[in-house]
Every structure is written in C-alpha cells, then in structure tokens.
C-alpha cells in the first residue's frame, strides 16, 4: 500500500534546533527574579535526621531560604519523596537551599549542619532476606504491592545463593498451564541461577527544573519523556488542580524510563517558589542525577526450562528476587515472565518473585524493564538447550516463535499480530547466518569468533487516548500533540497519521507540542514502546473526525451527501467532480461560522479533561477534529526484535569486540525508516552497555555508590560498538493500527544484550556466565580457571 507520509523519511521539526544547539533545555531558561536552588542529600544509606542547623547558611548574603521535608506534604511510603527526614539511600534529598546565584547556593550548602542518626541498611536483596537481615525501609523490607516484612531461613538463602531450586517464600506468583505435566513432557530440562545488575538511567540532561507561580498557576520547566501524561501526577505533587499547572517540556535530554511521569524533583521547585515568592531554578548535578535519576531493577534469580527433542519449549519456571532499590516499583519480574511467555510460547509457566528494598538509588522502568534482563539470561539458556539437542540457534527460536495466534502473559491473551518467525528468517538470510555460523569457535591467535542470535520483546501499544487536529482559515493543519519529545521523534511520526488521513502536505502541517499552553490533548506515556501504535490511532481518530466534518461542511456548502466527498491536495471535492471543491482554508472559515462541534465550541463527552480544556481554548480558531481512540483491539500489540551479532573474544585480555551487528524489527508497518533504524542501532548500543559495560556498584560496608560520574559508570563509547551496524524490519502491517504500526523501542535493546551474551557464550565453548554485565575480568578469570571474585548472585560485583 502506498502512502503519502507513512513509511517515508522526513525531518522532524526539532532536529535543526538540536543539531545547531538552539534547542533550549531546562537549564537554558531564566526568568526575572529567579533564584538558584541546590540540594543537600543524605551522606548515609539509611538514617534519621535529628537536627538541621541552617542558621549560618541563612545568615549569608544572597541566601534567600531553605526548604525541608517539614515544608512539604507528608509522604506516603514507599513513594519517592521530594525531601525527607528519613533518607533511604546515599543521595536522598534532605533539604534545598536557594540563593541569588549558584556560587552562593553552593557555599551555603557547606554551612548547613544536618545531624543524623544512622539506621540499619542493606545493599544486596538477599542480605535483607536473611534471618534478621536489615530492612532498607522501616516500614518493611519487601514490596509485593504492599509493604511487608519477609525473611527466609538460613537454609533458604544458602540454597538460593548456591543455585539450587529456591525454597524461600515468594510473595508474588502467577502461573498458567500444568507446570509439572509440561516438565514431564520435556525431553531435556535445564536449570540455571542468574544475576542481572541494575544500572543507572544516566540521562544526559539531569532532571533540573525551573518553576514559578503566576496568577495562581504554577509554571514548570521540566525535562520529561511524556507531556500530557505528566500533568495529573504533577498537579497532585504540587497540590493544585491540573488546570493550574503549565508544563513546558519541549526537549528532553534523555529519560530512558526515568522521566515518564511526574518524578519528585519536578514538583520541588514549585513548592520552593511558593515558599519564597520567587522563581526557583533547581539545577541537578551529574552526581545527583546518579542518585535521583533512577536505575534498572536488578534480578537475582533461578530459571528452569523444559524442551522437547525438536526444541519446543514445554515449560518454564522463573523465580526472581528483585532489587527494587529504596522506593515503590517492582513490575520488572512479571514483565520478564510475560516476555518469556510470548517469545517461547511454553505450554505451562510459573513466575514467582520477591521484590526487595535495598538502600540504593530508586529504581524504575528502564528500556525493557524486566523483558531485557530476562532476555540477557534466558536466551543463552535456549542456546544451551539447542547445543544439547543438536539444533541450530535460529531454528530453535523459529520453532518456538509466536505467530499471530500466539498468546502472552499469565492470562494467555491474544496478540494483535506477530511475525517473529519472519523476522528470524529475514535476519538469518541477510546476515548469511548459515555460512557464518560454520566459523564459530575458530581461533585466530588469541581471538575466537562467534556469531549468535538474540530476541527481545515488549508490549507495544495502548488505546483510549485522545487526538486533536485543527485546520485554521489560512489553510494550515495544526497537529496538537500531547506526546512528549523523548528523543525518538514519535511525537512527529505519529502525527503524520493525521496528515495521511487529511491528505495534506507535510509543509502545510504545524505541530504544536511541548507546553500545556500549546493546548494539547490527553496522551499516553512516552514509554513502554507504546507511542507508535497508540498515537497513530489517536491521531487517526482525530483526523477522521476532522475529515468527517470537512465532508459534512463541503456537502452542506456544495450540495450532496458527505459521503460523496473526498479529500486531496488540501481540498475537499465531490467525487468525480474535482471542480466542485473547497480548500481547507475555506472549510475552516465555514467551520468557525458554523460553531458547535465544527469549531470546537462543543466537544465529545468521552474525551479527557486535559483534551477538553485544550479544545475549549482553541474553540473558534478553526475546524477542530477531536476524538478519543475507542477503536477495538484484539489483543496485546507486541513489539518484537531479533539481533544477529558477530563477536571476537580475546582469550588473553577478556575483551570482546563486536565485529558486526544486524537488528531486525518486527513492529508492523515501518512509519519512519530513518527513525526506526536509529532506534535499532542506538537500542543495540544500550544493549551492549547492559551486557558488557554499565557499572552500578555499592560498597556493602557503608552503602556508598562507586558510580557517580560517566567515567565510572562506563556507558559504551564509539569505539565499543561496531563500525557497521545494520538495521531492517519485517514491515508487515498490524491489523489493529490504522496504518499498521506497532512500537519497537525496548525490544531492539533487549535483543542486542541477548545476542551479545549468546555470542560470548558460544565463543567460550558454551560457558554461561548467567549474569549481566560480563566484563573482561570475569572472562579472564574464567579462562584462567580462576573462581569469580564475587560470591554467587552478588549484585554489587562490578
């Protein structure tokens, strides 16, 4: 099918500003009377503030005030706090101080005396689960959706750490099918324990925020992944109604899951500004971003899988202890189970999990939260089975891959469509898999080469959000986008669905976004790989609403029925009679005259209050197309990805060179090829970071983190990734998206991590590290026949 916009490259409107440096990020803004705030954070991993003496700081010239937890609404455990008197990790904010300039604010910090009483702390989940183990929070040490205390017996802990089937209580569990029967049915059963380290989101732009109050409204300049979706939480955190909040977030210098919704710091300057009566700029330092900026949930786990002789996965049993850091989170384990359920379609499955608090940085969703951790350890297990059963790694994946009849999650619900087999086969052909695989294990000097394949999954779409388009009397099409600018250009690529429906030139379109004042509709979170699917739909329904109004106006003006009218070249004309037409400009002017729903004076009842307010503000300025996406959906829209990789492992230095990489996306129709390819390649870079580099480590003796700078956390650099990285897509349309697109952001990372793990294992003759990351020291130790330097399943190991 040939489209005007869908599947075509375009230049997203914010690109020029980004590459020329004209884009304004939060710290680039300044307003009259603005003061600069700085945070004083906890020096200890868990403690109680007993006294704060800020008198010396407040006496300094230029210091305008401090804000403490006592100035803020009381927190609800285990939510992340803006400021706290009972910090739960090193770096937890205790107070903020504001001064007329940054130097003074920093000097003031040095003069504040905070007296604290230390409390027991823990940085490794299993240490908390031991009998008498410390609780990271006084309210409880585990969080299975409620605060609880849970301790295992000594025997449970030892069994778990020694890799045996876990016996400790797991407060979360789901299952489907007859697990025992499915294992009995297997010809081969494999079990392994594993550990995946959490690591920082590492947003390049720290979560700095500028806030001020004007005429009862709080203006917040923040760095967020989403736009409209942030509003309810932000209003709640500020203690005001949503109508009284203006969020300006035009550019986001990276969020990676840590800036999906209203994070605590987003509201802090608003409170401070209210107290001081002055605009407050809170700049977050790089070090503080490592404290506040969230990290991936770490897994310590055990997995068992049953296989038929032909490679079919019969049963999977997963047991995961989650390191959920110090605050509310914990969905990663269940998501990991969901990924396994769809990628391998086991007949029966069980997931047990223990979400445990640690006195470490708050955790949250990070690209493929759960799915990517499990991909990193389960895919090598699949390869081990393939090796033992004498099956090719691609073949065993094809054998288990879901098609459109596949099922997913505990509920074993349907998917909208799935073409994973096609992705595997297309990738294998493009990568020349068969031929290259023959060379696996060949040595050249100290180096061993290997190719491998990896897979990734994430659900990739939601429904029920709103779209809003507007045609003004100058003939321009205004695409009001509540989608945030998280860096994938999905705000623009999904808006093109409306341009496609309205058959207008891209040059005639104008995207409105980035500020509540731009009158934006209610939108989904820019996370969970969902935007492409979700907002193609939302923009589609809004544009269809506009189209219906265009036709109705044309019929009313030019005669005939609305159905007789078509659109092209930004005109509406009677089918077969191109001369009987109106321009969009004329239609818009007529819509304003007509009023009612045409001009937005009336709006549908089912739209969100955010959308309703936007429509109200825009009413009378043109023809308004607005609708909530109520189109049916047959199941979970899956985002699926496959990676092919070739690595060279140096057996003397433990260094792994990635020689070649191919990423294959199965995300329905390709909407924006350049954007997709960038996603596939950059997702892979991140995946390599998770597999091999990114560091997140605490000293268990004092709870201090060793990773508070880029050079310490070691994200991949240009020379750590291959020169050549290829990308392609299956490009078969999903039936439940108007133009066939599903999301893909997260799986394209997980498949890369999985492929890297599998390739290193293959190069080392099938040795499984069962962990992320795998670093040169571990490879060197393994090859030298030395024991690893860390105890089994220890999270703080690199």
């Amino acid at each position, binding site marked *: 099918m040939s489209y005007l916009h869908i599947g075509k490259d375009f230049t997203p409107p914010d690109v020029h500003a980004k590459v020329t440096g004209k884009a304004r990020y939060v710290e680039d803004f300044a307003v009259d009377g603005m003061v600069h705030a700085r945070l004083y954070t906890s020096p200890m991993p868990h403690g109680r503030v007993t006294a704060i003496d800020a008198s010396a700081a407040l006496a300094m010239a230029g210091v305008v005030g401090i804000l403490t937890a006592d100035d803020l609404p009381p927190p609800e455990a285990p939510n992340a706090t803006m400021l706290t008197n009972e910090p739960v990790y090193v770096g937890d904010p205790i107070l903020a101080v504001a001064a007329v300039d940054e130097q003074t604010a920093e000097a003031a*910090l040095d003069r504040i005396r905070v007296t604290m009483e230390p409390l027991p702390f823990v940085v490794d989940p299993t240490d908390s689960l031991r009998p008498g183990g410390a609780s990271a929070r006084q309210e409880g040490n585990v969080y299975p959706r409620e605060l609880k205390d849970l301790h295992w017996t000594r025997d449970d802990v030892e069994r778990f750490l020694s890799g045996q089937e876990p016996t400790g209580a797991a407060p979360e569990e789901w299952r489907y099918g007859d697990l025992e029967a499915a294992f009995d049915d297997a010809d081969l059963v494999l079990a392994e324990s594993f550990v995946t380290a959490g690591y920082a989101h590492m947003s390049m732009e720290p979560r700095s925020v500028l806030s001020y109050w004007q005429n009862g409204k709080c203006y917040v300049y923040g760095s967020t992944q989403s736009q409209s979706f942030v509003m309810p939480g932000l209003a709640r955190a500020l203690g005001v109604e949503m109508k009284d909040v203006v969020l300006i977030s035009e550019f986001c210098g990276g969020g990676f899951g840590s800036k999906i919704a209203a994070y605590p710091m987003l509201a802090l300057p608003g409170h401070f500004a209210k107290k001081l009566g002055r605009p407050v700029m809170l700049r977050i330092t790089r070090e503080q971003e490592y404290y506040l900026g969230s990290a991936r949930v770490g897994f310590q786990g055990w997995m068992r899988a049953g296989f038929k002789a032909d490679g079919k996965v019969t049963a999977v049993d997963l047991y995961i202890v989650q390191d959920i850091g110090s605050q509310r989170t914990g969905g990663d384990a269940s998501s990991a189970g969901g990924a396994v359920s769809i990628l391998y379609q086991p007949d029966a499955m069980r997931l047990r999990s223990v979400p445990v608090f640690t006195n470490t940085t708050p955790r949250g969703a990070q690209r493929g939260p759960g799915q990517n951790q499990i991909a990193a350890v389960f895919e090598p297990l699949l390869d081990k089975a393939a090796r033992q059963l004498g099956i090719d790694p691609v073949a065993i994946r094809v054998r288990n891959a879901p098609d459109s009849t596949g099922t997913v999650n505990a509920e074993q619900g349907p998917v909208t469509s799935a073409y994973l087999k096609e992705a595997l086969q297309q990738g294998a052909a493009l990568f020349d898999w068969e031929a290259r695989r023959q060379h696996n294990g060949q040595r050249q000097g100290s180096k061993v080469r290997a190719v491998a394949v990896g897979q990734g999954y994430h659900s990739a779409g939601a429904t029920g959000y709103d779209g809003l388009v507007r045609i003004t009397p100058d003939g321009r099409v205004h695409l009001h986008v509540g989608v945030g600018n998280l860096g994938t250009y999905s705000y623009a690529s999904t808006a093109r669905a409306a341009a496609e429906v309205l058959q207008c030139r891209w040059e005639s379109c104008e995207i409105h976004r980035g500020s509540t004042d731009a009158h934006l509709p209610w939108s989904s979170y820019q996370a969970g790989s969902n935007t492409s699917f979700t907002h193609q739909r939302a923009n589609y329904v809004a544009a269809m609403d506009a189209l219906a109004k265009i036709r109705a106006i044309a019929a009313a003006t030019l005669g005939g029925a609305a159905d007789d009218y078509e659109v092209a070249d930004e005109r509406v004309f009677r089918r077969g009679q191109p001369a009987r037409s109106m321009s969009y400009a004329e239609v818009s002017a007529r819509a304003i005259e007509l009023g009612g729903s045409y001009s937005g004076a009336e709006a549908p009842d089912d739209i969100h209050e955010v959308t309703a307010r936007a429509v109200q503000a825009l009413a009378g300025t043109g023809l308004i197309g607005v609708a909530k996406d109520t189109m049916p959906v047959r199941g979970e829209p899956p985002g699926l990805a496959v990676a092919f990789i070739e690595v060279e492992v140096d057996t*003397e230095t433990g260094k792994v060179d990635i020689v070649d990489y191919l990423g294959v996306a199965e995300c329905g129709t390709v909407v924006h090829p350049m954007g997709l390819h960038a996603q596939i390649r950059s997702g892979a870079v991140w995946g390599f970071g998770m597999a091999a580099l990114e560091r997140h480590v605490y000293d268990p003796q004092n709870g201090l983190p060793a990773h508070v700078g880029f050079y310490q956390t070691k994200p991949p650099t240009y*020379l750590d990734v291959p020169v050549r990285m290829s990308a392609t897509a299956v490009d078969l349309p999903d039936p439940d998206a108007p133009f066939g697109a599903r999301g893909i952001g997260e799986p394209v990372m997980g498949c890369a991590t999985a492929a890297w793990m599998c390739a290193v294992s293959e190069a080392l003759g099938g040795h499984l590290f069962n962990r992320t990351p795998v670093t040169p020291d571990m490879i060197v130790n393994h090859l030298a026949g030395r024991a690893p330097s860390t105890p089994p399943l220890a999270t703080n190991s690199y």
Partner: protein
Amino acid sequence: MPAHDVMPDLTLYQPATLDDAVALADRLGTDAWLVAGGQDTFGWLKDRAKRPKALIELTAIDALKGVREVDGEVEIGALTTLTALAAEPLVRERYPLLAQAASHVASPQIRNMGTLGGNLCQDTRCWYYRRGLNCYRAGGNICYADSPQGMNREHCIFGASRCVAVSPSDTAPALVALEARMVITGPGGVRVLPAEGFFLGPEIDIEHMTALRPGEVLSAVRLPAKWAGRPCYFEKVADRNVWDFALVSIAAVFDEQAGTIREARLVSGGVATTPKRLRDVENALRGRPRNAATGDTVAALANRGARTLNHNHFKLPLLENLVRRSLRA
C-alpha cells in the same frame, strides 16, 4: 551531603614564564595548585574534594610546549598535549612506545586538552578517594578500598602500603620503560630524576604520587638515545576502548642482539601505585629469544610478590597474558 559542580572561588594566576610560575608556586606553597590541561584538576575542584586557594595555570608558558632534540636526546615539554605528542614525528619514529601510550589516554577530546605533564602528575582514580573521603591518601587514618568487602576491582596487586590505589597514567609506564628523565624546575633550580624515581608509592609518601614538592614544576621529560628505535610493545586493557583507565597495561622495550634479548624493560600500569617494573621478568629475559615460548616461560614471574584484594585477582592472569603478548609481538 552537599553536592557541588561549579568552580569554587579561588585566585587564578596565569604566569607567562616558567620562572614566574615557579616563583608563584614557591610563594603560595601548598595553597596553590598547578594546572595544565585541567582534565584531572577540574573534577577535584568542582567536587570540592580538594580545596586549594589558588590556581596557577601553566598553559601560557610556551617554552614548556613542544618536542626538541637536545644533545642526542629527545626533550618533550611538559605542556605538550597528548594529541601533539602522539602525532610528533620525532617521537613516533624513535619512541613509538610513548606515541602509542599517549594515543591510548582517555578520549580524543581529553588528549586535545590534556598534557604529558598532567598525565604524569595526575592523581589516582580510587573511587573512595575521588569521593572526597578522608582516607589515608587524603591525610586520614583509613583505607576504605582495602577492606573485607571493599570494592577494589581496579586497585593494586603490588606495593600496597595502607593505600591500595593505582597509578592511572598510560604514559608513565612507557617513560619508565624508556628510562626517561624528569626535569623538575624549582626555586632552587633544576633537578633531574629518573622516571622510576619520580613516581612514589604509598610506603614513601601516601599523600602524593610524585616526587614533586610544593613550588616545583615538572618542566620537561628527556628520553635517552639508548632506547631510540628499539622494538617495543604497548597495550592497555580497559573496560571501555575510550575514556577509561587501564585495568592493566604494559609498556616494554627490548634491546636484541643476534636473536636474543640483551636487555629488556617491562613496566606495567594499573597494578601498583607507581608504574611497576617487572624486574624478575626482565632478568629472566636476558639471553633468551623474543618469542612465544619465552613468553610462556617468563610470564608467571610477572606476578612474583603480588598480593590481591577481594575483586582484583583477575589482574594476575591478565598481567601474565600481557607479558606473553609483549614477547610474542
């Protein structure tokens, strides 16, 4: 815990001559901090982990820049940037070991700013110390890294004396291997130290990594003709290929005659607080051919006297392997 990231208030001096710089450094003593490219300095200052009162910026002293030939030796001004050093034909031709080492430092941007002098004088990267903790090296009474559960993967396997930090410099092992001499200008004039004596271990001075005293400036490095054009080998193993410090590195030069090694100098970075000369290996190499079999024979000698910490025993096989590679190349 205050977190800082803006430059502190301090007095900035920008002397245009070495004499002025030395006079300033002498007058200000421990209150002053010498800065060249600033790639180590600014982190310390912005974090407030070090709080000098004055900064003496040396970059205006043109006499300390560039490479020249003096009496058959090659003299490299301490302010020569690492990028310039790695590209300098005289160095590439006669001392490729140093050119290679310089080109492996950090990242291109850092090499553009960073100088040879700065790379040699930079402080250790022990993360505890860099956090500004009051450890031995910071004048305190304790080492946090060498503790029963300390996170010390990057720390030393040789020469620990309370402090277990390692020398982070990539060029230092090359200079020790090449028997470079360090030209130090101080208020009393110029003194010249062998590179090996320039770097101090914690047993001698736990708070400083070099023999520089307050008031002294490392002004140049001289490379003797002895090792010019000799076969050499440099390798740095780090987690990342850019902007990372060596887990273990090796710099080796060989004087071969009639197929056997007459003299060899092998120096390892990342394993001790100073560049670590592998003397046992050097001694064993005398009279042997430079080949893989010799490597296998002598590699284990590299670890004589090593003492590992909780997380760094991988450095033993890694160092052995690098010795092998230097002999095989």
